[in-house]
């Protein structure tokens, strides 16, 4: 169960190798969380994480999860619940960034990124919501991106998939009102991870640890929308309303 301070006792991560998600899991484990299931495409890829969690006394396991296989998502959620009981929190952390110039040359690859980031979030999000409704509680933590707040020329495929996911997650959250379950949207800015290695950091770039701190703080305060770091909330209130020519200039950096 979730407690009054936003701590949970079990968590399922879809996209179990996400550095942001694992930084969040580390903090949950340090508080009340004793059960963790990592949904990953290949369980072997999560061995190190699994061993680390287990050595700190956590009942941890992996489960095969493929964002590109929507038909399997409900079964994955059920299997995770069979393994650890009530799912107090489900983190939707999977996603691909891709390279805009490559997407421009390969529309099929771009469509696949959209299937992972958006379509995968839709099917896994709805399957999770059905489970949480039935158990009468639980938090979906949907990790979107500030890139979805306003698309820009150099990453609009990624940005638009995250915009879709963000809108979906907000609507899902609203649809869950009154059920005991809820959906919290996390909007990170630029994060230093494997995914962004070699890229030029945007302003207010943060580490996964900083993002996770902001998430834990937002959960404790019962927020529906968590900007990470929080300053991005103010920044994007302005950026969102800039005239397009000006936005083009700024976002081209």
């Amino acid at each position, binding site marked *: *169960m*979730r*407690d*009054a*301070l*936003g*701590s949970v*006792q079990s968590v399922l991560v879809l996209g179990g190798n996400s550095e942001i998600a694992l930084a969040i899991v580390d903090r949950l484990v340090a*508080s*009340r969380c004793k059960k963790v299931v990592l949904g990953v495409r290949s369980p072997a890829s999560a061995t190190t994480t699994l061993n680390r969690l287990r050595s700190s006394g956590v009942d941890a396991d992996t489960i095969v999860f493929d964002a590109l296989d929507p038909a399997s998502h409900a079964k994955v959620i059920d299997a995770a619940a069979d393994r650890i009981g*009530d799912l107090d929190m489900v983190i939707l952390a999977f996603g691909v960034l891709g390279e805009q110039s490559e997407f421009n040359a390969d529309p099929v690859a771009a469509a696949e990124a959209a299937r992972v980031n958006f379509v995968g979030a839709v099917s896994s999000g709805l399957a999770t919501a059905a489970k949480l*409704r*039935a*158990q*009468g*509680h639980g938090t979906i933590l949907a990790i979107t991106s500030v890139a979805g707040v306003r698309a820009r020329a150099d990453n609009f495929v990624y940005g638009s998939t995250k915009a879709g996911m963000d809108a979906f997650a907000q609507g899902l959250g609203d649809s869950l009102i*009154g*059920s*005991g*379950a809820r959906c919290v949207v996390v909007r990170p800015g630029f994060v230093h991870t494997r995914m962004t290695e070699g890229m030029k950091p945007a302003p207010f770039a943060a580490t996964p640890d900083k993002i996770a701190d902001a998430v834990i*703080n937002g959960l*404790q*305060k*019962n927020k529906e929308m968590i900007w990470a770091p929080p300053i991005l909330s103010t920044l994007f209130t302005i950026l969102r309303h800039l005239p397009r020519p000006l936005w083009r200039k700024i976002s081209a950096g």
Partner: protein
Amino acid sequence: MHPEPAASRAVPSTSELFGWGRTAPTGADVRRPTSPIELQRALPTSFERGLIARGLGRSYGDAAQNAGGTVIETTDVAAFTIHASDPNSDTVLVTADAGASIDRLLHALVPQGLFVPVTPGTRYVTVGGAIAADIHGKNHHLKGSWCNHVASLHLQLADGSVVEVGPDRDPELFWATAGGMGLTGVILDATFRCPRIGSSQLLVDTDRAADLDAVCELMRSGDHLYDYSVAWIDLMATGKNMGRSVLTRGRFASASEAAPKIGADPYVYKANELVSAPPFMPAGLLNNLSIRAFNELWFRKAPVERRNEIQSIPTFFHPLDMVRGWNRIYGPAGFLQWQFVIPFDATSALATIVEEISRSGCTSFLAVLKSFGEGNPGPLSFPAGGWTLALDIPTGIQGLGPLLDRLDDLVVGVGGRIYLAKDSRVRPELLPEMYPRLNEWREVRERVDPNRRMMSDLARRLGL
């Protein structure tokens, strides 16, 4: 003027429920039976996620909610009978449905020269809740907790059967139900002893204490002279003011003592809610500064020493009930209450805790400090001889979780415990240490509910 919703709803419907702290709501199939027969028939046919009874929802945390399962709200089954008695006896027996509130009881009892055996800081609690949490009040040092005054009760077990239990009839099940957080079955009604009073007024002595040592000494030396005693302590005061308190103690006045204030009818009783808290409060209105200022004002306003002041029952016992829905003032993140008891010989731990809270800058309105008398045989009953401190804290405060975890360790270290009816966040692994007779309780539960049909979010969270 009753806060209980008037609409009756026997048909199940899914609703979100939370405790008084407004944290961690969950969804359940909520049933609201309107008669004792309906109540007994309200048990679900499927127990996949169990069942818990709920009264007026004054538990701070998740004790009266049951995610994905069934919750039976008992407040529409609220009849009671005052039994005939020998006018020379000190007490009168009252039989009340579990859903009857202390508020309703007082409206009937006080005009007849009677009072409830125990009242907490709010009169909006039900008889069922009073038993399930084994509530205590300002008279604990002399009279113990609610279940000390219960002669018998009817309990519907998870298999649907109804049993009558009491201190002399299946005492194991009775005492497991006392403070058992509703997990031994649905309490249907109870018979308890109500004391006679000389008037509806109290004679109150107030003492202002400069610090924690001073207030503890006042209570140690003088509490036995008063029927009711409690201290309000300012946990935001630091330095030499740390632990400064206002101690109020009193007893019921006789008819002649009360007459100058209330006139001929010694049992006149008016208890109304005066104002409502606004339905929506912006986050951050109650901050460190505003609460500090409030606490300062409150302390300076109190007399240094005042004797024999006449106060009404609502003023003395239920001051917060004057503001309907005051729990909303903490804003959207909600709040929690942390209440512990530690043995008298651990007074230094009390000082350490007060110091830690004061120094943490943790925003807290006035806290309540009281000295408890001995506990009763209930394995999960909270009160035990020692100091108890209760404080409300908004949940949004950074670092609150680790701070309270540290303080829990301190409490456990000196043989203390926290109060389950207030809890919304304790580490489950501390429970067997706080309640060393937990296994005894579990054995009784195993006997009456082997399939764990009685279930609440609190039970899930703490692995009860």
